[in-house]
Protein backbone atom coordinates (compact mmCIF):
# COMPACT_ATOMS: atom_id res chain seq x y z
CA UNK A 1 0.00 0.00 0.00
CA UNK A 2 1.20 3.44 -0.82
CA UNK A 3 1.16 6.51 1.36
CA UNK A 4 -0.99 8.33 -1.20
CA UNK A 5 -4.60 8.86 -0.23
CA UNK A 6 -6.27 5.48 -0.51
CA UNK A 7 -9.29 5.87 -2.78
CA UNK A 8 -11.60 2.87 -3.16
CA UNK A 9 -10.19 2.52 -6.67
CA UNK A 10 -6.58 2.29 -5.56
CA UNK A 11 -7.59 0.05 -2.71
CA UNK A 12 -9.27 -2.54 -4.95
CA UNK A 13 -6.25 -2.60 -7.25
CA UNK A 14 -3.89 -2.96 -4.30
CA UNK A 15 -5.92 -5.90 -2.96
CA UNK A 16 -5.71 -7.62 -6.30
CA UNK A 17 -1.93 -7.06 -6.51
CA UNK A 18 -1.47 -8.43 -3.00
CA UNK A 19 -3.46 -11.58 -3.80
CA UNK A 20 -1.42 -12.12 -6.97
CA UNK A 21 1.83 -11.61 -5.07
CA UNK A 22 0.80 -14.10 -2.38
CA UNK A 23 -0.82 -16.79 -4.52
CA UNK A 24 0.23 -16.24 -8.13
CA UNK A 25 -1.94 -14.87 -10.94
CA UNK A 26 -3.72 -18.11 -11.70
CA UNK A 27 -4.85 -18.88 -8.15
CA UNK A 28 -5.88 -15.26 -7.66
CA UNK A 29 -8.15 -15.57 -10.72
CA UNK A 30 -9.28 -19.20 -10.46
CA UNK A 31 -12.98 -18.64 -9.81
CA UNK A 32 -13.08 -15.64 -12.10
CA UNK A 33 -11.72 -17.76 -14.97
CA UNK A 34 -14.15 -20.60 -14.24
CA UNK A 35 -17.03 -18.15 -14.12
CA UNK A 36 -16.17 -16.51 -17.42
CA UNK A 37 -15.77 -19.95 -19.00
CA UNK A 38 -19.19 -20.91 -17.66
CA UNK A 39 -20.84 -17.71 -18.93
CA UNK A 40 -19.25 -18.12 -22.36
CA UNK A 41 -20.06 -21.84 -22.42
CA UNK A 42 -23.74 -21.25 -21.62
CA UNK A 43 -24.04 -18.91 -24.59
CA UNK A 44 -21.93 -21.08 -26.90
CA UNK A 45 -24.13 -24.10 -26.27
CA UNK A 46 -27.05 -22.07 -27.62
CA UNK A 47 -25.04 -20.52 -30.45
CA UNK A 48 -23.53 -23.64 -32.03
CA UNK A 49 -27.04 -24.66 -33.05
CA UNK A 50 -28.00 -21.66 -35.18
CA UNK A 51 -24.42 -20.96 -36.32
CA UNK A 52 -22.93 -24.41 -36.95
CA UNK A 53 -26.01 -26.60 -37.03
CA UNK A 54 -24.93 -28.57 -33.94
CA UNK A 55 -28.16 -28.66 -31.99
CA UNK A 56 -27.05 -29.35 -28.42
CA UNK A 57 -29.53 -26.83 -27.12
CA UNK A 58 -32.33 -25.05 -28.93
CA UNK A 59 -34.36 -22.10 -27.74
CA UNK A 60 -32.82 -19.61 -25.33
CA UNK A 61 -32.52 -18.99 -21.59
CA UNK A 62 -36.27 -18.38 -21.29
CA UNK A 63 -37.05 -21.93 -22.34
CA UNK A 64 -35.02 -24.51 -24.15
CA UNK A 65 -34.75 -28.07 -25.21
CA UNK A 66 -31.46 -29.86 -24.51
CA UNK A 67 -30.61 -32.46 -27.17
CA UNK A 68 -34.27 -32.37 -28.09
CA UNK A 69 -35.08 -34.27 -24.90
CA UNK A 70 -34.67 -32.32 -21.67
CA UNK A 71 -36.84 -29.20 -21.32
CA UNK A 72 -35.58 -26.22 -19.31
CA UNK A 73 -37.62 -23.13 -18.46
CA UNK A 74 -36.96 -19.92 -16.58
CA UNK A 75 -39.13 -20.21 -13.44
CA UNK A 76 -39.52 -16.45 -13.00
CA UNK A 77 -40.86 -15.94 -16.53
CA UNK A 78 -43.17 -18.91 -16.08
CA UNK A 79 -44.38 -17.45 -12.76
CA UNK A 80 -45.33 -14.23 -14.57
CA UNK A 81 -47.16 -16.31 -17.17
CA UNK A 82 -49.09 -18.14 -14.44
CA UNK A 83 -50.14 -14.97 -12.58
CA UNK A 84 -51.11 -13.50 -15.97
CA UNK A 85 -53.68 -16.26 -16.19
CA UNK A 86 -52.11 -18.91 -18.40
CA UNK A 87 -51.88 -22.53 -17.29
CA UNK A 88 -48.56 -23.60 -18.82
CA UNK A 89 -48.08 -26.92 -20.60
CA UNK A 90 -46.32 -29.77 -18.81
CA UNK A 91 -43.13 -29.26 -20.81
CA UNK A 92 -42.57 -25.77 -19.45
CA UNK A 93 -43.54 -26.75 -15.89
CA UNK A 94 -41.09 -29.66 -15.94
CA UNK A 95 -38.41 -27.34 -17.30
CA UNK A 96 -38.99 -24.76 -14.58
CA UNK A 97 -38.91 -27.41 -11.86
CA UNK A 98 -35.57 -28.75 -13.15
CA UNK A 99 -34.12 -25.23 -13.07
CA UNK A 100 -35.35 -24.55 -9.52
CA UNK A 101 -33.88 -27.85 -8.29
CA UNK A 102 -30.59 -27.14 -10.07
CA UNK A 103 -30.20 -23.70 -8.50
CA UNK A 104 -31.32 -24.98 -5.11
CA UNK A 105 -28.22 -27.19 -5.33
CA UNK A 106 -25.61 -24.87 -6.86
CA UNK A 107 -26.84 -21.62 -5.27
CA UNK A 108 -29.74 -19.45 -6.44
CA UNK A 109 -27.82 -16.46 -7.67
CA UNK A 110 -25.21 -18.74 -9.23
CA UNK A 111 -27.42 -17.88 -12.21
CA UNK A 112 -26.25 -14.27 -11.87
CA UNK A 113 -22.62 -15.17 -11.29
CA UNK A 114 -22.13 -18.06 -13.66
CA UNK A 115 -24.74 -17.89 -16.45
CA UNK A 116 -26.32 -14.47 -16.99
CA UNK A 117 -24.50 -12.51 -19.71
CA UNK A 118 -25.52 -9.19 -18.15
CA UNK A 119 -23.08 -10.06 -15.34
CA UNK A 120 -20.21 -9.70 -17.80
CA UNK A 121 -21.53 -6.30 -18.91
CA UNK A 122 -21.97 -4.95 -15.38
CA UNK A 123 -18.64 -6.43 -14.23
CA UNK A 124 -17.02 -4.59 -17.13
CA UNK A 125 -18.82 -1.39 -16.16
CA UNK A 126 -17.57 -1.85 -12.59
CA UNK A 127 -14.02 -2.53 -13.78
CA UNK A 128 -14.06 0.60 -15.91
CA UNK A 129 -15.57 2.58 -13.03
CA UNK A 130 -12.62 1.61 -10.84
CA UNK A 131 -10.11 2.26 -13.65
CA UNK A 132 -11.49 5.73 -14.28
CA UNK A 133 -11.73 6.43 -10.57
CA UNK A 134 -15.44 7.24 -10.71
CA UNK A 135 -16.64 7.45 -7.12
CA UNK A 136 -19.99 9.16 -7.65
CA UNK A 137 -22.53 6.71 -6.28
CA UNK A 138 -26.25 7.46 -6.28
CA UNK A 139 -27.13 5.16 -3.42
CA UNK A 140 -30.09 2.87 -3.93
CA UNK A 141 -31.73 0.62 -1.39
CA UNK A 142 -30.69 -2.96 -2.07
CA UNK A 143 -34.25 -4.02 -1.34
CA UNK A 144 -35.44 -2.09 -4.39
CA UNK A 145 -35.08 -5.31 -6.42
CA UNK A 146 -37.71 -7.00 -4.24
CA UNK A 147 -40.10 -4.15 -4.87
CA UNK A 148 -39.39 -4.26 -8.59
CA UNK A 149 -40.00 -8.03 -8.50
CA UNK A 150 -43.37 -7.48 -6.78
CA UNK A 151 -44.13 -4.73 -9.28
CA UNK A 152 -43.49 -7.00 -12.27
CA UNK A 153 -45.84 -9.63 -10.87
CA UNK A 154 -48.44 -6.95 -10.17
CA UNK A 155 -48.13 -5.70 -13.75
CA UNK A 156 -48.42 -9.26 -15.07
CA UNK A 157 -51.71 -9.65 -13.22
CA UNK A 158 -52.95 -6.24 -14.35
CA UNK A 159 -52.10 -6.68 -18.03
CA UNK A 160 -52.62 -10.43 -18.35
CA UNK A 161 -49.25 -10.70 -20.05
CA UNK A 162 -45.69 -11.70 -19.21
CA UNK A 163 -45.02 -8.08 -18.28
CA UNK A 164 -41.32 -7.92 -17.40
CA UNK A 165 -40.42 -9.54 -20.69
CA UNK A 166 -41.48 -6.36 -22.47
CA UNK A 167 -38.41 -4.62 -21.01
CA UNK A 168 -36.18 -7.24 -19.35
CA UNK A 169 -32.55 -6.40 -20.25
CA UNK A 170 -31.45 -9.86 -19.05
CA UNK A 171 -33.68 -11.58 -21.62
CA UNK A 172 -32.83 -9.00 -24.23
CA UNK A 173 -29.10 -9.64 -23.99
CA UNK A 174 -29.18 -13.43 -24.16
CA UNK A 175 -31.94 -13.44 -26.77
CA UNK A 176 -30.13 -10.76 -28.73
CA UNK A 177 -26.92 -12.79 -28.78
CA UNK A 178 -28.75 -15.93 -29.94
CA UNK A 179 -31.45 -14.48 -32.20
CA UNK A 180 -30.17 -11.04 -33.20
CA UNK A 181 -30.26 -7.92 -31.12
CA UNK A 182 -32.05 -5.16 -33.10
CA UNK A 183 -32.33 -2.00 -31.02
CA UNK A 184 -31.95 -4.02 -27.82
CA UNK A 185 -28.38 -2.73 -27.54
CA UNK A 186 -29.80 0.60 -26.35
CA UNK A 187 -31.18 -0.95 -23.16
CA UNK A 188 -27.94 -2.87 -22.66
CA UNK A 189 -26.05 0.40 -22.99
CA UNK A 190 -28.38 1.96 -20.42
CA UNK A 191 -27.57 -0.79 -17.90
CA UNK A 192 -23.84 -0.35 -18.59
CA UNK A 193 -24.02 3.40 -18.09
CA UNK A 194 -26.13 3.05 -14.94
CA UNK A 195 -23.42 0.89 -13.39
CA UNK A 196 -20.59 3.00 -14.75
CA UNK A 197 -21.60 6.52 -13.80
CA UNK A 198 -24.72 6.49 -11.64
CA UNK A 199 -24.75 3.73 -9.04
CA UNK A 200 -22.01 1.33 -8.02
CA UNK A 201 -23.21 -2.19 -8.88
CA UNK A 202 -26.58 -0.56 -9.64
CA UNK A 203 -28.31 -3.11 -11.83
CA UNK A 204 -27.42 -6.57 -10.52
CA UNK A 205 -27.21 -5.71 -6.83
CA UNK A 206 -30.06 -3.23 -6.50
CA UNK A 207 -32.64 -3.36 -9.28
CA UNK A 208 -32.78 -6.61 -11.23
CA UNK A 209 -35.89 -8.66 -10.32
CA UNK A 210 -34.44 -11.75 -12.00
CA UNK A 211 -31.58 -11.73 -9.49
CA UNK A 212 -34.07 -11.06 -6.69
CA UNK A 213 -36.08 -14.09 -7.77
CA UNK A 214 -33.05 -16.37 -7.89
CA UNK A 215 -32.09 -14.92 -4.50
CA UNK A 216 -35.25 -16.48 -3.10
CA UNK A 217 -34.25 -19.85 -4.55
CA UNK A 218 -30.79 -19.21 -3.06
CA UNK A 219 -32.03 -19.01 0.53
CA UNK A 220 -32.25 -22.81 0.53
CA UNK A 221 -29.29 -23.55 -1.73
CA UNK A 222 -26.84 -26.28 -0.81
CA UNK A 223 -23.62 -24.84 -2.21
CA UNK A 224 -22.24 -21.99 -0.10
CA UNK A 225 -19.10 -19.97 0.38
CA UNK A 226 -17.73 -20.19 3.90
CA UNK A 227 -15.23 -18.08 5.83
CA UNK A 228 -13.72 -21.39 6.90
CA UNK A 229 -10.47 -19.97 8.31
CA UNK A 230 -11.73 -16.68 9.65
CA UNK A 231 -9.14 -16.75 12.47
CA UNK A 232 -6.54 -16.05 9.78
CA UNK A 233 -8.30 -12.89 8.60
CA UNK A 234 -5.94 -9.92 8.49
CA UNK A 235 -8.74 -7.34 8.18
CA UNK A 236 -7.36 -6.17 4.85
CA UNK A 237 -10.86 -5.61 3.45
CA UNK A 238 -10.11 -7.15 0.06
CA UNK A 239 -13.18 -9.42 0.10
CA UNK A 240 -15.49 -6.49 0.87
CA UNK A 241 -14.03 -4.47 -1.98
CA UNK A 242 -14.59 -7.16 -4.65
CA UNK A 243 -17.94 -8.51 -3.42
CA UNK A 244 -21.06 -7.33 -5.23
CA UNK A 245 -23.03 -7.82 -1.99
CA UNK A 246 -20.46 -6.96 0.72
CA UNK A 247 -23.06 -6.73 3.47
CA UNK A 248 -23.50 -10.52 3.45
CA UNK A 249 -19.87 -11.36 4.29
CA UNK A 250 -19.82 -9.75 7.73
CA UNK A 251 -21.88 -12.30 9.72
CA UNK A 252 -19.80 -15.22 8.45
CA UNK A 253 -16.42 -13.54 8.70
CA UNK A 254 -16.80 -11.37 11.79
CA UNK A 255 -19.64 -13.06 13.67
CA UNK A 256 -19.23 -15.91 16.08
CA UNK A 257 -22.01 -18.02 14.59
CA UNK A 258 -21.92 -19.94 11.38
CA UNK A 259 -19.04 -19.50 8.97
CA UNK A 260 -21.33 -20.09 6.02
CA UNK A 261 -22.43 -17.10 3.98
CA UNK A 262 -26.10 -17.87 4.21
CA UNK A 263 -27.72 -14.96 2.40
CA UNK A 264 -29.60 -15.73 -0.78
CA UNK A 265 -27.99 -12.63 -2.25
CA UNK A 266 -24.63 -14.45 -2.57
CA UNK A 267 -23.71 -15.22 -6.19
CA UNK A 268 -21.31 -18.03 -5.26
CA UNK A 269 -18.97 -16.19 -7.61
CA UNK A 270 -15.87 -17.01 -5.57
CA UNK A 271 -14.54 -13.44 -5.87
CA UNK A 272 -13.70 -13.38 -2.16
CA UNK A 273 -11.87 -16.72 -2.45
CA UNK A 274 -9.78 -15.39 -5.33
CA UNK A 275 -8.86 -12.10 -3.72
CA UNK A 276 -8.18 -13.22 -0.14
CA UNK A 277 -4.40 -13.25 0.33
CA UNK A 278 -4.57 -15.70 3.24
CA UNK A 279 -7.23 -18.10 1.89
CA UNK A 280 -9.93 -17.51 4.49
CA UNK A 281 -12.77 -18.48 2.17
CA UNK A 282 -13.70 -21.71 0.47
CA UNK A 283 -16.54 -23.10 -1.60
CA UNK A 284 -18.41 -25.66 0.44
CA UNK A 285 -21.85 -27.06 1.08
CA UNK A 286 -24.45 -26.59 3.73
CA UNK A 287 -24.31 -29.46 6.22
CA UNK A 288 -21.16 -30.85 4.71
CA UNK A 289 -17.86 -29.13 5.28
CA UNK A 290 -14.48 -30.72 5.16
CA UNK A 291 -11.85 -28.93 7.16
CA UNK A 292 -9.07 -28.50 4.63
CA UNK A 293 -6.71 -26.75 6.99
CA UNK A 294 -6.81 -29.78 9.27
CA UNK A 295 -7.76 -27.62 12.20
CA UNK A 296 -9.58 -28.72 15.29
CA UNK A 297 -13.02 -30.22 15.20
CA UNK A 298 -14.57 -27.03 16.57
CA UNK A 299 -14.08 -25.37 13.21
CA UNK A 300 -15.85 -28.19 11.49
CA UNK A 301 -18.74 -28.10 13.92
CA UNK A 302 -19.56 -24.47 13.60
CA UNK A 303 -19.68 -24.64 9.82
CA UNK A 304 -23.11 -26.05 10.55
CA UNK A 305 -25.01 -23.32 12.30
CA UNK A 306 -26.44 -23.85 15.73
CA UNK A 307 -30.17 -23.17 15.54
CA UNK A 308 -30.27 -19.80 17.36
CA UNK A 309 -27.67 -18.29 15.01
CA UNK A 310 -29.95 -18.56 12.01
CA UNK A 311 -31.58 -15.17 12.38
CA UNK A 312 -28.22 -13.47 12.50
CA UNK A 313 -27.76 -14.10 8.80
Amino acid sequence: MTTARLTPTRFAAACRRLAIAEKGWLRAHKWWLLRRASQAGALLVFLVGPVLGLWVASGNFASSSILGVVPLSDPYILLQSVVAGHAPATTALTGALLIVVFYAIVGGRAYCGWICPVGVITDTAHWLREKLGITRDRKLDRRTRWWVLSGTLLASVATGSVAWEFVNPVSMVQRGLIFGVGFGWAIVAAVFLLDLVVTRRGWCSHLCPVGAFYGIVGTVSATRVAAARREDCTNCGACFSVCTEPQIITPALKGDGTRLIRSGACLNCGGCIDVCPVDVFEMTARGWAADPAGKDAAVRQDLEPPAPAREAA
Partner: protein
Amino acid sequence: MTRKSTMNRREVLASVAKAGGVTCLAGLALTAYVESTSKAEATALRPPGALPEDDFLSACVRCGLCVQACPYDTLHLATLGDPAPLGTPFFLARDTPCAMCRDIPCTRACPTGALDAGLTDIREADMGVAVLVGHETCLNYKGMTCSICHRVCPIRDEAITLERQTIDGRSLVIPTVHSDRCTGCGTCEKHCVLGHAAIRVLPRDLGLGGKGRNQAGRPT
Protein backbone atom coordinates in the same frame (compact mmCIF):
# COMPACT_ATOMS: atom_id res chain seq x y z
CA MET B 1 -32.02 -8.79 5.60
CA THR B 2 -33.88 -9.01 8.88
CA ARG B 3 -32.61 -6.74 11.58
CA LYS B 4 -33.53 -7.97 15.01
CA SER B 5 -36.21 -5.62 16.32
CA THR B 6 -33.91 -2.63 16.16
CA MET B 7 -36.54 -0.65 14.27
CA ASN B 8 -39.10 1.42 16.06
CA ARG B 9 -42.66 1.72 14.87
CA ARG B 10 -42.02 4.85 12.84
CA GLU B 11 -39.19 3.18 10.93
CA VAL B 12 -41.25 0.06 10.27
CA LEU B 13 -44.13 2.13 8.91
CA ALA B 14 -41.79 4.19 6.75
CA SER B 15 -40.16 1.04 5.44
CA VAL B 16 -43.48 -0.62 4.61
CA ALA B 17 -44.70 2.55 2.91
CA LYS B 18 -41.52 2.71 0.86
CA ALA B 19 -41.81 -0.93 -0.21
CA GLY B 20 -45.45 -0.52 -1.13
CA GLY B 21 -44.81 2.74 -2.93
CA VAL B 22 -41.95 1.48 -5.05
CA THR B 23 -43.85 -1.75 -5.80
CA CYS B 24 -46.87 0.21 -7.02
CA LEU B 25 -44.69 2.64 -8.95
CA ALA B 26 -42.83 -0.18 -10.71
CA GLY B 27 -46.05 -2.10 -11.29
CA LEU B 28 -47.96 0.88 -12.66
CA ALA B 29 -45.15 2.09 -14.90
CA LEU B 30 -44.72 -1.39 -16.34
CA THR B 31 -48.47 -1.84 -16.75
CA ALA B 32 -48.72 1.47 -18.61
CA TYR B 33 -45.82 0.55 -20.87
CA VAL B 34 -47.14 -2.94 -21.60
CA GLU B 35 -50.63 -1.62 -22.33
CA SER B 36 -49.18 0.89 -24.76
CA THR B 37 -47.16 -1.63 -26.75
CA SER B 38 -48.77 -4.96 -26.17
CA LYS B 39 -50.55 -5.48 -29.47
CA ALA B 40 -48.91 -6.86 -32.56
CA GLU B 41 -49.42 -4.69 -35.62
CA ALA B 42 -51.70 -6.01 -38.33
CA THR B 43 -48.73 -6.83 -40.57
CA ALA B 44 -47.13 -9.14 -37.99
CA LEU B 45 -48.66 -12.61 -38.18
CA ARG B 46 -48.39 -15.22 -35.44
CA PRO B 47 -47.26 -18.82 -36.07
CA PRO B 48 -49.96 -21.44 -36.73
CA GLY B 49 -51.84 -22.55 -33.63
CA ALA B 50 -51.19 -19.29 -31.77
CA LEU B 51 -53.74 -18.54 -29.06
CA PRO B 52 -55.79 -15.34 -29.50
CA GLU B 53 -53.44 -12.36 -29.02
CA ASP B 54 -54.39 -11.59 -25.39
CA ASP B 55 -53.98 -15.20 -24.32
CA PHE B 56 -50.85 -15.53 -26.41
CA LEU B 57 -49.14 -12.70 -24.52
CA SER B 58 -49.80 -14.40 -21.19
CA ALA B 59 -48.47 -17.73 -22.44
CA CYS B 60 -45.47 -17.02 -24.67
CA VAL B 61 -42.12 -16.92 -22.81
CA ARG B 62 -40.20 -15.63 -25.87
CA CYS B 63 -37.90 -18.66 -26.06
CA GLY B 64 -37.68 -18.93 -29.84
CA LEU B 65 -38.08 -22.71 -30.01
CA CYS B 66 -40.76 -22.24 -32.71
CA VAL B 67 -38.43 -19.93 -34.63
CA GLN B 68 -35.65 -22.51 -34.62
CA ALA B 69 -38.05 -25.33 -35.48
CA CYS B 70 -39.23 -23.56 -38.64
CA PRO B 71 -37.41 -25.15 -41.61
CA TYR B 72 -37.98 -22.10 -43.85
CA ASP B 73 -36.70 -19.30 -41.59
CA THR B 74 -40.16 -17.78 -41.75
CA LEU B 75 -40.45 -16.89 -38.08
CA HIS B 76 -38.53 -14.22 -36.18
CA LEU B 77 -38.39 -13.10 -32.56
CA ALA B 78 -39.30 -9.43 -32.35
CA THR B 79 -36.60 -7.01 -31.31
CA LEU B 80 -37.27 -3.40 -30.33
CA GLY B 81 -38.81 -1.61 -33.29
CA ASP B 82 -40.35 -4.72 -34.85
CA PRO B 83 -44.13 -4.75 -35.41
CA ALA B 84 -44.77 -7.33 -32.64
CA PRO B 85 -44.21 -7.06 -28.86
CA LEU B 86 -40.59 -7.58 -27.82
CA GLY B 87 -39.31 -11.13 -28.02
CA THR B 88 -42.48 -12.69 -29.43
CA PRO B 89 -42.45 -14.77 -32.65
CA PHE B 90 -43.99 -13.35 -35.80
CA PHE B 91 -43.67 -13.41 -39.56
CA LEU B 92 -44.26 -10.95 -42.34
CA ALA B 93 -46.16 -12.56 -45.19
CA ARG B 94 -44.67 -10.21 -47.80
CA ASP B 95 -41.13 -11.31 -46.78
CA THR B 96 -41.52 -15.03 -46.07
CA PRO B 97 -44.96 -16.61 -45.87
CA CYS B 98 -45.77 -19.72 -43.84
CA ALA B 99 -44.98 -22.87 -45.84
CA MET B 100 -47.76 -24.77 -44.08
CA CYS B 101 -45.68 -27.84 -43.12
CA ARG B 102 -47.90 -30.85 -42.59
CA ASP B 103 -46.18 -31.80 -39.30
CA ILE B 104 -46.36 -28.18 -37.99
CA PRO B 105 -42.90 -28.28 -36.30
CA CYS B 106 -43.21 -24.77 -34.81
CA THR B 107 -46.37 -25.61 -32.89
CA ARG B 108 -44.96 -28.93 -31.70
CA ALA B 109 -41.83 -27.17 -30.39
CA CYS B 110 -43.75 -24.78 -28.13
CA PRO B 111 -43.14 -25.68 -24.46
CA THR B 112 -45.85 -23.51 -22.92
CA GLY B 113 -48.96 -24.04 -25.02
CA ALA B 114 -48.85 -20.51 -26.48
CA LEU B 115 -49.00 -22.37 -29.79
CA ASP B 116 -51.79 -24.88 -29.36
CA ALA B 117 -50.47 -28.43 -29.78
CA GLY B 118 -54.08 -29.47 -30.43
CA LEU B 119 -53.68 -28.14 -33.98
CA THR B 120 -52.84 -31.25 -36.00
CA ASP B 121 -54.14 -30.30 -39.46
CA ILE B 122 -52.34 -27.24 -40.83
CA ARG B 123 -55.38 -26.50 -43.00
CA GLU B 124 -57.27 -25.71 -39.79
CA ALA B 125 -54.69 -23.04 -38.84
CA ASP B 126 -55.86 -19.46 -38.42
CA MET B 127 -52.94 -17.07 -38.82
CA GLY B 128 -55.22 -14.45 -40.36
CA VAL B 129 -57.26 -14.11 -43.52
CA ALA B 130 -56.31 -12.84 -46.97
CA VAL B 131 -58.23 -9.77 -48.14
CA LEU B 132 -58.06 -8.26 -51.60
CA VAL B 133 -57.62 -4.69 -50.49
CA GLY B 134 -56.40 -3.10 -53.73
CA HIS B 135 -59.47 -2.92 -55.93
CA GLU B 136 -57.94 -0.01 -57.86
CA THR B 137 -54.57 -1.63 -58.36
CA CYS B 138 -55.21 -5.38 -58.67
CA LEU B 139 -54.45 -6.35 -62.27
CA ASN B 140 -57.49 -8.63 -62.47
CA TYR B 141 -59.70 -5.64 -61.69
CA LYS B 142 -58.03 -3.89 -64.62
CA GLY B 143 -59.15 -6.63 -66.95
CA MET B 144 -55.95 -8.68 -67.05
CA THR B 145 -55.77 -12.26 -65.90
CA CYS B 146 -52.75 -12.04 -63.58
CA SER B 147 -54.43 -14.31 -61.03
CA ILE B 148 -51.02 -15.03 -59.44
CA CYS B 149 -52.62 -15.14 -55.98
CA HIS B 150 -54.97 -17.85 -57.12
CA ARG B 151 -52.22 -19.86 -58.74
CA VAL B 152 -49.81 -19.85 -55.77
CA CYS B 153 -52.40 -20.52 -53.07
CA PRO B 154 -51.48 -23.79 -51.30
CA ILE B 155 -55.16 -24.57 -50.70
CA ARG B 156 -55.77 -24.62 -54.40
CA ASP B 157 -59.22 -23.64 -55.68
CA GLU B 158 -60.60 -23.64 -52.19
CA ALA B 159 -59.18 -20.66 -50.31
CA ILE B 160 -59.05 -18.43 -53.39
CA THR B 161 -61.26 -19.03 -56.42
CA LEU B 162 -61.61 -17.01 -59.61
CA GLU B 163 -65.13 -15.67 -59.96
CA ARG B 164 -66.44 -14.15 -63.18
CA GLN B 165 -68.07 -10.80 -62.52
CA THR B 166 -69.39 -8.03 -64.70
CA ILE B 167 -68.30 -4.63 -63.47
CA ASP B 168 -69.13 -1.46 -65.44
CA GLY B 169 -70.10 -3.67 -68.34
CA ARG B 170 -66.74 -5.38 -68.46
CA SER B 171 -66.38 -9.08 -67.84
CA LEU B 172 -63.66 -9.60 -65.20
CA VAL B 173 -62.18 -12.59 -63.43
CA ILE B 174 -61.87 -11.66 -59.77
CA PRO B 175 -59.76 -13.56 -57.20
CA THR B 176 -62.14 -14.26 -54.34
CA VAL B 177 -61.03 -15.36 -50.87
CA HIS B 178 -63.11 -17.87 -48.93
CA SER B 179 -62.41 -17.03 -45.34
CA ASP B 180 -63.53 -20.43 -44.03
CA ARG B 181 -60.76 -22.12 -46.04
CA CYS B 182 -58.02 -19.46 -45.91
CA THR B 183 -55.38 -20.10 -43.20
CA GLY B 184 -53.63 -16.75 -43.60
CA CYS B 185 -50.35 -18.33 -44.69
CA GLY B 186 -49.57 -15.26 -46.81
CA THR B 187 -48.36 -16.97 -49.98
CA CYS B 188 -50.70 -14.79 -52.08
CA GLU B 189 -49.43 -11.60 -50.45
CA LYS B 190 -45.84 -12.71 -51.01
CA HIS B 191 -46.33 -13.29 -54.74
CA CYS B 192 -48.56 -10.36 -55.68
CA VAL B 193 -46.71 -8.72 -58.57
CA LEU B 194 -47.45 -5.15 -57.52
CA GLY B 195 -44.92 -2.97 -55.69
CA HIS B 196 -47.18 -3.13 -52.65
CA ALA B 197 -49.38 -6.19 -52.45
CA ALA B 198 -53.02 -5.73 -53.46
CA ILE B 199 -53.97 -8.83 -51.44
CA ARG B 200 -52.92 -8.89 -47.79
CA VAL B 201 -53.27 -11.18 -44.84
CA LEU B 202 -54.91 -9.41 -41.90
CA PRO B 203 -55.87 -10.62 -38.44
CA ARG B 204 -59.29 -12.19 -38.85
CA ASP B 205 -61.32 -9.59 -36.94
CA LEU B 206 -59.63 -6.78 -38.85
CA GLY B 207 -59.96 -8.46 -42.22
CA LEU B 208 -63.57 -9.59 -42.00
CA GLY B 209 -65.38 -7.19 -39.76
CA GLY B 210 -68.10 -8.71 -37.63
CA LYS B 211 -71.71 -8.74 -36.67
CA GLY B 212 -73.10 -6.14 -34.31
CA ARG B 213 -75.78 -6.58 -31.73
CA ASN B 214 -78.90 -5.29 -33.50
CA GLN B 215 -80.38 -6.28 -36.81
CA ALA B 216 -78.78 -3.40 -38.65
CA GLY B 217 -75.39 -4.67 -37.48
CA ARG B 218 -74.59 -1.69 -35.28
CA PRO B 219 -73.85 -1.83 -31.56
CA THR B 220 -76.90 -0.93 -29.51
